[in-house]
């Protein structure tokens, strides 16, 4: 299943609802383009909702890190919401769990940007 990305706005935060796989090729490129587009438009608060992401590989991890660093360089924030067990597992093994702000509750995640 390829990656699909749905975008919505809530209280000044742009939420990307991701669904599918973030892997080398299509999924990683889609995520990269979406993040660059938002950063290019001056969006400062980005929340990646990963509750329907059932698979991520090292390339996908790289895109999450790139999204994080690209945003930081533009004084923006990328945070993560609703990790599946598999994605959480991979983030913990690679110590990236300590890098990102991660939330299980959307309201708390939205509030954290203020």
């Amino acid at each position, binding site marked *: 299943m390829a990656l699909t990305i749905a975008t919505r706005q809530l209280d000044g935060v742009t939420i990307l609802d991701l669904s599918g796989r973030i*892997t*080398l090729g299509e999924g990683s490129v889609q995520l990269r383009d979406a993040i660059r587009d938002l950063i290019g438009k001056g969006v400062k608060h980005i929340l990646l909702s990963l509750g329907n992401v059932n*698979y991520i590989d*090292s390339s996908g991890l*790289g895109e999450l890190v*790139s999204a994080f660093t690209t945003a930081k360089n533009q004084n923006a924030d990328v945070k993560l919401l609703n990790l599946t*067990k598999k994605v959480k*597992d991979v983030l913990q*093994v690679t110590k990236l769990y300590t*890098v990102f702000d991660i939330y299980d509750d959307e309201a708390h995640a939205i509030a954290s940007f203020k």
Partner: protein
Amino acid sequence: MTGPQTGRLSFKLASTMDSVAEIEAAAEKLTQAAGMDEDESFRVVMAVREAAVNAVLHGNGYDPNKQVSASFENTGKSLVISIADQGEGLDPDTLPDPLAPENLLRGTGRGIFLIRSFLDEVHFRQLHPGTELTLIKHLTPAATPDDVTQNDKDLDTN
């Protein structure tokens, strides 16, 4: 947990992402046939996929004149998967540590680390040309009162 079904499957594929998907699917079948639970299956399949991507992308560089060899075997005690490319070779000792603070925010360099993290044994062999990775995941037998404290690492008696 069902009993493991032994057998060996091997094939050669083109250096394409379709081949990566084919290798990933074969790994998934292998773990399912071995009765592995979903979490362990995910880890093994992910490691195999990373090895396949390395072979296709970094080893063979998508070269249509180079192939990727893959073999899958359930020995009854372990799952043994080999992935080989025909590239210039890889020295695993030269790879930077992706957990080091200076590397943590790098966009690449986690593939081999994930393979090593998710499997019990990983062996590199230089083929001149190419690199072969042999990935081994020990199978955990159904627990009995005598071995209930035994874990995967304890089974590594080779």
